[in-house]
């Protein structure tokens, strides 16, 4: 399988491990990622919060590039990038005025033919292969699957899974041999882009998520968004007011990579602020596969 790849800025910075683990997992699963050449920022929150047209155009530039490079679908592993690209595609499909303006704004032809896919969507499609190739399944690891906001909302843009009770991340975790836990804050917001500007809010929201996952008995949380990861991982030490035990935060690709028997180092797991080592050692000691 071949798919266009839009890493997005975070994957070159704070979320390097997502880029690394995605590439490693894709190679193991026979997915060829073709990076969109000369991609640019999707505009993120700062784009759509300040100028609607700008936000659509910044995202659409990448779709236009993908189109010119002969791709029919593009994977945006960052949930926020996915949401921006999918929104641009949605707007261009439904708003004739914007559709007509775009080629001139971009200075590029744009016919809106490239489908946008998110990470969970891709991995869910590969679940049978993951299951078949899982040499070190995550037996016994209890995982709280955290969707956050933008993977499934708004439903007409994301166009993926059930907007209120999604199941795809759980399906992937199951395929990797893990045990998804039932918990409540799967779809609550982590504070997103406020990490810098309203750190207090991020800590409040993040704590609620961590507490709930802990109550549900989770060993770790799986995410599919660099912002969620950064907020829950980097800011976790500030959230542990009462000295709660650390909760490792994994990108979904990292968990899949572990199950496929890839080295934690190759998956970038050592880059986490909350170390996953104790958990992985426990798993290993219990003879439960993961090295």
């Amino acid at each position, binding site marked *: 399988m071949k798919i266009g790849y839009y890493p997005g800025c*975070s994957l070159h910075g704070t979320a390097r491990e997502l880029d690394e683990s995605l590439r490693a997992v894709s190679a193991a699963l026979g997915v060829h990622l073709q990076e969109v050449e000369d991609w640019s920022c999707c505009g993120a*929150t*700062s784009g759509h919060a300040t100028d609607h*047209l700008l936000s659509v155009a910044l995202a659409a530039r990448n779709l236009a590039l993908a189109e010119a490079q002969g791709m029919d679908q593009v994977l945006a592993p960052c949930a926020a990038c996915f949401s921006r690209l999918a929104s641009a595609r949605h707007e261009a499909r439904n708003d004739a005025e914007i559709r007509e303006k775009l080629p001139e704004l971009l200075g590029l032809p744009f016919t809106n033919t490239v489908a946008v896919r998110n990470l969970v969507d891709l991995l869910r499609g590969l679940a049978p292969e993951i299951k078949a190739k899982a040499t070190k399944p995550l037996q016994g690891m209890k995982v709280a699957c955290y969707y956050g906001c933008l993977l*499934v*909302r708004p439903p007409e843009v994301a166009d993926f899974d059930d907007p209120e009770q999604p199941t795809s991340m759980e399906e992937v975790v199951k395929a990797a041999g893990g045990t998804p836990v039932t918990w409540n804050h799967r779809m609550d917001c982590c504070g997103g882009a406020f990490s810098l500007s309203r750190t207090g809010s991020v800590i409040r929201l993040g704590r609620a998520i961590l507490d709930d996952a802990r109550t549900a008995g989770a060993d770790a949380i799986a995410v599919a968004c660099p912002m969620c990861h950064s907020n829950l991982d980097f800011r976790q030490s500030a959230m542990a007011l009462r000295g709660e035990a650390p909760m490792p935060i994994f990108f979904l690709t990292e968990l899949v990579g572990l199950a496929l028997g890839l080295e934690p180092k190759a998956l970038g797991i050592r880059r986490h602020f909350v170390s996953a080592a104790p958990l992985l050692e426990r798993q290993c000691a219990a003879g439960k596969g993961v090295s």
Partner: protein
Amino acid sequence: MAGETRFRPHDVMRMVQRDQRARLLADDSIWLCLTCETCTARCPNGLDPARVVDALRELSMTEAPGRIPKAIAAFHRSFLEEVKRTGRMGEFGLVLRYKLRTGQFMKDVGAVPSMVRRGKLKPLAPSIKGVKGVRRIFEKCAEARRANGQEEVRP
């Protein structure tokens, strides 16, 4: 985030209906929205409060720029500036700009070494090849705003 705001999504929609623009823009509620899209997904009438909030923020940039929470405005400006300069968001550049704007030089400084150690913070990134194309988008959008009689959004 609704818990931290004075006006919640339904208040915002109601105030828009009653054309209470000044009251809305004078408050920082709309800037505290994280666009988690829950309101839009659950509105029984199929309305899209998240887009309305976006539109209000856009209005606010030109009509009440002074009312935007400083830290948030600084973040958005720094972000867009960085994108306009290089075509991408380099976190180092973003944080640098943000700190220059807000004067919060010491915040999170302690985290820098650990960030670097983990390979998560790269020095100032070079521009992408097609950065001109990105700047063109910024300029065209600014033109469109001027044509609509709106002030330019200044990143």
